[in-house]
């Protein structure tokens, strides 16, 4: 039997390695870099946006009440309401497409598909999720508009909100389907068995048990999808056109926040001009909108995840 003091010596010797300290410092710094990114986003957007509002031509009131967005015109008007309404308009179209299709696809995948089918469809949806938006834009412009919209709804222009909305919707389907599917899959299989064992049919099981159990996850997927639609840039830039006035006709072109940002920046606006600053004003507007949605989605998703942990 060893001596108590020997034992104490053994138990108290602590090893320290400098390499451990260096690595730890590095990874800690990396994590804090995330905060840095956020701060710089807000900081840059804010400073330039403040500059924007300092231009006498721009008024806060005008920003929210004017009905035209024409920063590069001779008499620029900065009615952001035009952009916001277009953005929401297209986003709503996208949601009308993507929510039912995404959700039902998710229900099919998690409740009805055989393992084999699932193995095929799931990656296909994932690939769909990875298709660059510029491709969807091309698709909207060169296929949806001529082959669907213009064929069935005569009088639509080459650039129109409907086509853009549909393309955005298609783009979001995988997001909605995949997150909803995850939510449904996170519901323990035992609930499904429990319901079936009570004599419920599969339809009732999926609608009355699985769907409610996954509801918060599904809602989170909807919110996230909506946020994506709002922030989507290339599709609306390519296929949505640039109609800078307030307008609610889906057949006509519209001007979303994102496409106006892209267009203004394409116009080779020199640094410091009001048009340049307008970019950032729009940026912060968009940032706030998506920020609220993202946080909301995250909050709801977290809440439901707790239930089964």
């Amino acid at each position, binding site marked *: 039997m060893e001596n108590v003091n020997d034992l104490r010596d053994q138990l108290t010797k602590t090893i320290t390695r400098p390499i451990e300290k260096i690595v730890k410092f590095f990874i800690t710094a990396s994590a804090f870099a995330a905060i840095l990114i956020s701060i710089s986003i807000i900081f840059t957007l804010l400073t330039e946006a403040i500059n924007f509002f300092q231009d006498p031509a721009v008024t806060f009131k005008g920003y929210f009440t004017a009905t035209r967005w024409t920063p590069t015109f001779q008499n620029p008007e900065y009615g952001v309401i035009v952009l916001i309404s277009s953005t929401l308009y297209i986003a709503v179209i996208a949601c009308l497409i993507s929510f039912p299709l995404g959700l039902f696809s998710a229900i099919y995948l998690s409740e009805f598909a055989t393992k084999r089918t699932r193995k095929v469809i799931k990656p296909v949806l994932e690939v769909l999720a990875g298709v660059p938006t510029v491709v969807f834009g091309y698709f909207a412009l060169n296929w949806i508009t001529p082959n669907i919209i213009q064929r069935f709804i005569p009088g639509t222009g080459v650039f129109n909100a409907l086509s853009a909305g549909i393309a955005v919707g298609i783009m979001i389907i995988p997001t909605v389907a995949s997150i909803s599917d995850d939510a449904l899959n996170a519901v323990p299989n*035992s609930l499904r*068995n*429990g319901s*079936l064992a009570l*004599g*419920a049919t599969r339809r009732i099981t999926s609608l009355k*048990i699985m769907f*409610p*159990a996954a509801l918060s996850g599904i809602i989170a997927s909807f919110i996230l999808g909506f946020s994506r639609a709002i922030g989507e840039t290339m599709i609306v830039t390519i296929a949505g056109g640039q109609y800078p006035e307030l307008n609610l006709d889906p057949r006509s072109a519209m001007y979303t926040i994102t496409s106006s940002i892209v267009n203004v920046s394409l116009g080779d606006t020199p640094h410091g001009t009001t048009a340049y600053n307008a970019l950032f004003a729009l940026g912060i507007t968009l940032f706030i909108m998506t920020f609220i949605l993202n946080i909301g989605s995250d909050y709801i998703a977290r809440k439901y995840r707790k239930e089964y942990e």
Partner: protein
Amino acid sequence: METKETVQVNSESVFNVTDLSVSYGDFVAIKNVNMDITKNKITAFIGPSGCGKSTLIRSFNRMNDLILGAKVNGTITYQGVDLYDKMVDPVQVRRRIGMVFQKPNPFPKTIKENITFGLKVNNMTDNMDDRVEKALTQAALWDEVKDDLDKNALELSGGQQQRLCIARTIAVEPDTILMDEPCSALDPVATKKIEDLMQELVKEFSILIVTHNMQQASRSSDYCAFFTTKTSDDGKRRTGELVEFNETSVMFTTPDKELTEQYISGRFG
């Protein structure tokens, strides 16, 4: 309910299993099972892991239908009706033959809704409140939850959850309750409660229970079936087989088969 009370006295059989085999694809999980399950008795299935107990018990209410590739050969008749007849609707079967699972699986709804769900899907929407109370009372849970029927079922303790699952199963008035290791996720105190409950329920229902716990089988069942895995001569296929089916008291004092004796006295493998 009245009909059942009168039937209760005679000890006829409720299931007749003849030459039953269940396979998953090419793999025969359990084969050549022949047994008669007696009405209003507790029949326990015991045996080493993987011998096909769960597979077998799932074939009593056609839960195996839900598993891809699962195939049942042979016949199980339930009160004279072949459960695997083409005309038989598995959904109806499951209403008559309830099932309780290994892990308590209450729906993430209120206590009451957990019970009314089964009632609704079975169109038993009359006197729902009475039925809820009756089921909870039978499951020995009423007193504990009667003031909290609108509480989320997930807030109950594990043992209470399992009793709730039993309550929702008996609410739809099945004849038989299948239980696949219903206590393995519970501590001894909760286990005791479920076992006591089983003794109450067996007066009205026939109970089939799979258990890993030999003590549980010995102390709470009337009949006991011991299964084991036989390896084929070439050592490739491992198939579950019924070794002995006997009264529990006989099985644990004077088992017929050497293998049973080895298993129940812990000298197995």
